């Protein structure tokens, strides 16, 4: 392979690598009265960061991320910041799932400088990458180190194209304690080609977005096929933002939603750099308009198969001037007329909690629900538990419908104190219409007093479990990956028609570790010093001090008289 310096070519003769930007917003009314809005901004760039060329001219693709990819030989990068927990039973499945806090998983490339057999090379690159990302996104990602990083052996397969799936190149870490606020949204918005000045991104106002039940922003970078032949790859950057607005907080209890109510802004134009800019409203539950009414009306309708179901959407194309009407601004209004109808129960959902009492032992219970009436399907459970909860794997039990359910694959990596966490991966077959319970007992460790956070009585977090599964779908999924599809239906690649891939995150756990009283060193020092000073000091003084009688100092008259007597040469008084 030729790695010599690239020859200087006349720029007008070499075709510029094409880049393309699309933006879309999907609004899905939920049965509980809340509303779910999902933004996706996708930049596709037909360039190659990897083959030794230095890319120097960035247009739509943000330069900070491009430099990260080429410097750290990243093949895939997925980072998400979430505030709140996704309630699957009330809201269904999200388009892009994410756990509370921050989550980062990266597939590295086998690069010339870093053959995987050089011990710690990928680890060193991972550490530098987390530091650089913490600067880009203003988050404390530098707290990701070997104590919370795992290498899953079967979960988190690459979402982009690729042949190697050697899990030594994969790193996964979560920070469940990470807070998401405007300071994370600001740099995220700055990565968009139009910033927050034009297009759908003008709706992203932090005061409204963070006053919601769920807020998640993510960046996904992966290589994708350019066309159906898949001979060349292009880099795809997807920035997604999912938010669920609460009926009582944002709509004051009235079941009437509009863009202005949700985002305190209306739309006036599409991003000029976007090739497509669309809003989709999910009207599947409202075929004749009897449940809710959408205004302004639009003639465009689209059907898409997403999350195993065929959904119908009203489409608003922002690149057409006619969408904005005579007032030159678009404020979609969704008004409810009746509130009946049941939500389709999601086929897979999971819960997790800590059982037990006291500060010494406990038990982690994970429950996985399969709500399909007659089909069973396999799920892959990934658990990453910090080292200070010492798991007793001999107490691991997996039961379905009261009977023992032996997993067909278990991968367990024990923890090392202060070095790495526990990693437990299991492939479990969930029987139809059942609850599977996974329990494991643990013991809490005593940390060194410098390892406690400044607020240790808050507790310590254990990251969410990840349940990946191929769930049977109601309708046939579309396996042709390069046909023109809305962005929300092309996130997960689809290999077979009868099932779709879904990832469910459980709640993170908050456990209290035995916490010492941090004022005790100060108390002990004070008490000891007082005892020593008062007790020993007094004794020492009594034993070693000698007493002498001292003349009191003479008064002023006597002193003057003494001075005069000294001058006269007479002995003083």
């Amino acid at each position, binding site marked *: 392979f030729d790695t010599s310096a690239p020859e200087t070519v006349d720029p007008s003769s070499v075709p510029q690598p094409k880049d393309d930007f699309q933006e879309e917003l999907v609004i899905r009314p939920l049965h509980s009265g809340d509303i779910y809005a999902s933004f996706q901004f996708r930049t596709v760039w037909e360039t190659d960061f990897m083959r030794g060329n230095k890319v120097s001219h960035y247009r739509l693709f943000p330069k900070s991320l491009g430099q990260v990819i080429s410097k750290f030989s990243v093949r895939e990068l997925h980072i998400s910041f979430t505030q709140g927990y996704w309630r699957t039973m009330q809201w269904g499945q999200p388009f892009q799932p994410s756990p509370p806090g921050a989550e980062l998983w990266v597939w590295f490339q086998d690069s010339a400088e870093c053959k995987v057999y050089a011990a710690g090379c990928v680890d060193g690159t991972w550490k530098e990458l987390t530091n650089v990302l*913490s600067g880009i996104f*203003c988050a404390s990602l530098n707290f990701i180190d070997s104590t919370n990083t795992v290498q899953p052996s*079967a979960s988190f*397969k690459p979402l982009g*194209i*690729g042949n190697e799936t050697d899990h030594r190149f994969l790193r996964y870490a979560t920070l469940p304690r990470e807070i998401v606020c405007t300071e994370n949204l600001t740099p995220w918005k700055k990565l968009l080609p139009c910033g927050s000045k034009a297009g759908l991104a003008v709706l992203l106002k932090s*005061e409204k977005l963070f*006053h919601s039940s769920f807020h998640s922003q993510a960046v996904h970078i992966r290589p994708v096929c350019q066309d159906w032949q898949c*001979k060349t790859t292009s880099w795809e950057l997807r920035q997604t933002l999912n938010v669920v607005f609460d009926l009582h907080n944002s709509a004051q209890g009235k079941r009437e939603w509009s863009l202005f109510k949700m985002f305190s802004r209306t739309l006036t134009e599409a991003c000029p750099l976007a090739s497509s800019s669309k809003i989709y409203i999910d009207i599947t539950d409202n075929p004749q308009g009897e449940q809710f009414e959408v205004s302004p009306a639009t003639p465009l309708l689209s059907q898409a198969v997403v999350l195993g179901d065929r959904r119908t959407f009203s489409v608003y194309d922002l690149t057409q001037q006619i969408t904005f009407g005579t007032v030159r601004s678009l404020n979609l209004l969704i008004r409810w007329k009746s509130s009946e109808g049941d939500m389709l129960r999601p086929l897979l959902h999971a819960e997790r909690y800590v059982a037990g009492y006291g500060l010494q032992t406990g038990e982690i219970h994970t429950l996985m629900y399969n709500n399909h009436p007659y089909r069973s399907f396999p799920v892959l459970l990934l658990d990453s538990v910090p080292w200070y909860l010492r798991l007793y794997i001999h107490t691991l039990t997996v039961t379905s419908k009261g009977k023992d359910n032996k997993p067909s694959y278990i991968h367990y990596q024990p923890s090392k104190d202060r070095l790495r966490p526990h990693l437990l991966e299991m492939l479990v077959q969930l029987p139809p219409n059942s609850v599977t319970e996974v329990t494991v007992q643990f013991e809490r460790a005593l940390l060194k007093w410098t390892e406690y956070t*400044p607020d240790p009585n808050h507790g310590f977090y254990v990251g969410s479990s990840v349940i990946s599964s191929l769930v049977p779908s109601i309708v046939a999924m579309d396996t042709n990956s390069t046909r023109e599809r809305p962005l929300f239906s092309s996130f997960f690649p689809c290999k077979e028609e009868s099932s779709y891939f879904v990832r469910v995150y459980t709640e993170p756990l908050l456990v209290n570790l035995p916490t010492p009283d941090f004022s005790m060193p100060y108390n002990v020092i004070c008490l000891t010093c007082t005892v020593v000073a008062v007790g020993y000091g007094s004794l020492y003084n009594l034993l070693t001090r000698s007493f002498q009688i001292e003349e009191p100092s003479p008064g002023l008259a006597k002193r003057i008289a003494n001075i005069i007597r000294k001058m006269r040469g007479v002995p003083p008084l």
Partner: protein
Amino acid sequence: IFFFYSIHLLHTADNAGQFFSSGHTNNWAVLVCTSRFWFNYRHVANTLSVYRSVKRLGIPDSHIVLMLADDMACNHRNPKPATVFSHKNMELNVYGDDVEVDYRGYEVTVENFLRVLTGRLPPSTPRSKRLLSDDRSNILIYLTGHGGNGFLKFQDSEEISNVELADAFEQMWQKRRYNELLFIIDTCQGASMYERFYSPNLMALASSQVGEDSLSHQPDLAIGVHLMDRYTFYLLEFLEDIHPASKTNMNDLFKVCPKSQCVSTPGHRTDLFLRDPGSVLITDFFGSVRKVEITMETINLTDPIKQVEQRKYSYVDQLPVSEIIHQKPKQKDWHPPDGFILGLWTLILLVFFKLYGMKHLKHIF
């Protein structure tokens, strides 16, 4: 036309002369809030109001190191998320829509603060977390939190003493990391923190003298906590009147918040500062100097892209069940080789009898 052009040139030369008379070419700001927990909302509001003023007067985010020890805006106790107010009745949101916090939460420690000042950070630290000042930088350092006589508390678990701070500034001076430095502190007994300074070109302001407490300004009944400290509240009001071209000098800053408004006595220290405070503009520290060179020539960028060899790619299976199951060979329990245990016991017995003699044999059988 030539006449007017030459006059314009003279005018710019005049401005250029003024431009360089202050001696600094860039501005930096390090703004630190050291308190954690919801009831210390006012310290975060203090820091954010100085951040807001400094950004308004021109210092860009890349030249500001903002350290907030706890998150108040998206705290679950905040009735209005993503906002931090400085005035009651929610008049002014100092958090805003465009804020970049460099060090947050548990990252705000004494060690990180001193490393930022002295520049001794690990090599993988990103640029936004570094203080990349040089010997022509004017730096503004603002600290707020809970303090005492000679120390400032960081996050309820550690303190920084005035000696450490003075030594850090001396390190900065010896490494030529600042031209002039303005140090403002708003804590109880704040004047004790600048008593020990000994490096040149330092000017310091504090909200209260040794033995006095700095008091908070006013609570907001809807949010439920005190919103600002008095000194910074009046400092914010003073700074709101400053614009990038204003000529107000440091003597006006010393008069901010007299005892009648602040209850404590603000103090200042200028003996280490070489210039007369009356000639130092507020914008020398709170504003920003930018050197911009405009050029009209075009620069050609070369774009070498090589063709990649043609290969067919495909997506990977997300959950390849059969591959996963066969990834690991079937685990079989390990048993020791046949007869191993029997042989081991025979050996032990033989050794035992060799050592102690055969007479013990009758005790066994």
